[in-house]
């Protein structure tokens, strides 16, 4: 039986996850990629606040294609997570509980994940058409002028991911 994770995430619910384990995400997740992360960081420097409450939230590193008429979303696979590394410790400090992306993370991100008891999930890259079936709705909620790089609020059902870095800091990509 594959474990289901519901958002917003309670740290208690994820503490036993193990790197390499497959799980299904359910609930609201927010897309944010390079441009949105840079804006988060700039706004925080300017105002001391983030424009969005990230407590228990899951951020999906993704820039989807637009939906066809009547559809929820277009192709929506993950983008490379490591490009978001330098912005991640701040977001974790502000309560971010989970991230979904592809590829490895820096050691300092791994340490920050461990420190905050958060989790990094890996989604399979290059299967965006298939993953679109797991998204019930999408709506741009922040930085709409960024187009595909805006922050979208997605409602997902059984969105399939693999635990990349678990709350204890174990990394599926760690050299054995």
């Amino acid at each position, binding site marked *: 039986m594959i474990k289901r994770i519901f958002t917003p995430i309670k740290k208690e619910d994820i503490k036993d996850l193990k790197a390499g384990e497959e799980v299904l995400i359910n609930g609201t997740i927010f897309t944010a990629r390079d441009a949105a992360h840079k804006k988060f960081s700039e706004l925080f420097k300017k105002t001391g606040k983030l424009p969005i409450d990230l407590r228990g939230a899951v951020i999906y590193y993704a820039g989807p294609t637009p939906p066809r008429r009547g559809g929820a979303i277009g*192709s929506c696979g993950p983008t490379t997570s490591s490009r978001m590394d330098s912005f991640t410790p701040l977001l974790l400090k502000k309560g971010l509980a989970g991230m979904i992306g592809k590829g490895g993370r820096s050691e300092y991100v791994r340490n920050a994940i461990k420190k905050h008891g958060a989790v990094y999930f890996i989604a399979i890259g*290059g*299967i965006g*058409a*298939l993953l*679109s079936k797991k998204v019930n709705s999408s709506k741009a909620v922040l930085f709409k002028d960024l187009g*595909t*790089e805006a922050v979208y609020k997605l409602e997902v059902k059984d969105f399939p991911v693999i635990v990349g870095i678990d709350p204890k800091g174990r990394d599926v*990509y760690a050299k054995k």
Partner: protein
Amino acid sequence: MRKIQVAKIRDVVKRLCLEANFILRKDVLAALKKAEKKETNKRARAIFGQIIENARVAKKERIAICQDTGMAVIFIELGQEVILAGGDLNGAVSEGVRRAYSEGCLRKSVVADPIERHNTKTNTPPIVFIKIVPGNRVRITVSPKGFGSENKSRIKMFKPTADLAEIKAFIIDTVKAAGPDACPPLILGIGIGGTFERCAHLAKEALLRPIDKHNVKRHIRKFEEDIAKEINALGIGPMGLGGRTTVLGVNVEEFPTHIAGLPVAVNVSCHATRSASAVI
């Protein structure tokens, strides 16, 4: 002389942008199916299954194979006996791209200025290469290139006395550095020779060759096979989670070079390497 309206070129560019983004190349799909069959790692096998299923859904529903529908790279082989009529060729090509990305619900991933970074919202301009060739036809190839893998590409100017082992080590190191980020199993386009820019161009062109076709030169063919074998022995596997296939194909293109140098470029491409061609 043969007259061709640029509107015709615009329409073909549009059709090829859509085809490339919705329909996975036959050679790539065949290689994925072969890799799935020989995979012994359970997770890797399951990932291959999902990649193949994704290609089926994308084609059937005309939804992009990958959300990174790329910067459109367009190669035009223009017959020298062709007269282009009805307007500006580059404008027509751009308009074909704009229409495809708008009407086909593809992602607009192009920013107008690399520093200021405002999205053009049209996925234009494309990257266009025009080559004049004999004849009275126009061959157009569209290759939407995703940047997850483009970012991992490298070029190195070797000494002319470098041997194949050094070149191979550079290529393998490039794949290791790409790791899981570039969506393995990869396809490698490798350029050897020419000048700095020609070498990178050769690497890009190499990605257009079907991966079941080797370089016609015997020593280059052997080099392609050796690199593939060594990389697959690394066990990086699909999405870097382990497995027997890390590269689906290695394509090398070479060109004469200078006595003082030996440029080598590796254009890294993902398991969703896309392109489509047509002849007018």
